[in-house]
């Protein structure tokens, strides 16, 4: 079982917590009357209280992961309902593992349920993206395959002017690595999690590279008179 850390790091094989091996009933929703203070206390209370809290929390995680898989189902339409639910179940299990290692970081600034949901959402979304791109090659040579500009005067103007400047900015202002990342993420539309996994890096590191690339492109366009000081084209 592999686990996605917030920020996208894959932290390798993590044993499934023994406490949650017993499955919760489908559709089970946790006791939302617990307060933000109650949840961490219950999850570390030991005994039957802790077991009950873990089952309820797993129910919450499963609800969130199924919700996420449903939202992104359009990316994995070739997978049947059983496989989709298996993805959600696995994501809930893995997200619970991550959450329990982060329990001490819960600050009570949000409701515990909202804090918990995000772990399951991240895990499920990452897995759906991975499934959607399984078996698909990702080109990393930094060569953009441009699509034809839209019809009409507006499209032609973009193609001949600003768009040309953007192409030059990519050639002149970006490093090879920045160009490769920008092309993969923004032209080839490779999901950032998928690209991170293929390159052995993290979502956070790729986003930082992308941010720097965009900053350089915008600076080039500003210097060339295509953006004003307010950043408008």
């Amino acid at each position, binding site marked *: 079982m592999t686990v996605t850390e917030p920020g996208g790091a894959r932290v390798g094989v993590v044993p499934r917590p023994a406490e949650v091996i017993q499955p919760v009933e489908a559709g089970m929703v946790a006791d939302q009357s617990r307060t933000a203070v109650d949840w961490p206390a219950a999850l570390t209370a030991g005994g039957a209280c802790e077991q009950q809290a873990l089952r309820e929390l797993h129910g919450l995680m499963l609800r*969130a992961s199924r*919700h996420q898989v449903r*939202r992104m189902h359009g990316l994995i339409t070739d997978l049947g309902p059983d496989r989709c639910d298996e993805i959600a179940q696995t994501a809930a299990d893995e997200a619970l593992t991550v959450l329990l290692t982060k329990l001490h970081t819960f600050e009570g600034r949000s409701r515990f349920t909202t*804090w918990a949901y995000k772990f399951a959402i991240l895990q499920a979304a990452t897995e759906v993206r991975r499934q959607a791109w399984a078996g698909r090659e990702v080109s990393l040579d930094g060569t953009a395959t441009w699509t034809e*500009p*839209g019809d009409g005067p507006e499209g032609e103007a973009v193609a001949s002017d600003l768009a040309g400047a953007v192409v030059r900015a990519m050639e002149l202002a970006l490093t090879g690595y920045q160009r490769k990342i*920008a092309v993969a993420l923004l032209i080839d539309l490779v999901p950032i999690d998928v690209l991170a996994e293929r390159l052995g890096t993290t979502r956070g590191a790729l986003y930082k590279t992308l941010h720097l690339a965009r900053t350089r492109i915008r600076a080039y366009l500003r210097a060339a008179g295509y*953006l004003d000081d307010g950043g408008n084209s």
Partner: protein
Amino acid sequence: MSVGPSADQVRLLTTPAEPWLSCDDCFHLMDVVVDQLVATSRPVEELPRLRAHLRACPACAEEVDSLLELTCDDARVDSAPARAALGLGDGALPR
């Protein structure tokens, strides 16, 4: 007419993302901001940074949108005002 980037591609390549917020920071903040938007009418201090990041990072935008939808379902409230405050749903970015 030569082949070149489409208007959408130009927009993606030039999307401003200031003030800076990392994906890790976005994950750290998302539950706090979502709960504040859903449950209170207080101004949300971190909103500008989060909004800028979501405009530039479609994966984080998808996950925040999903969290917001789930939280609004629990609270039985309309998610539209909070989605608008976060700038969600106004782009056609990949997720």
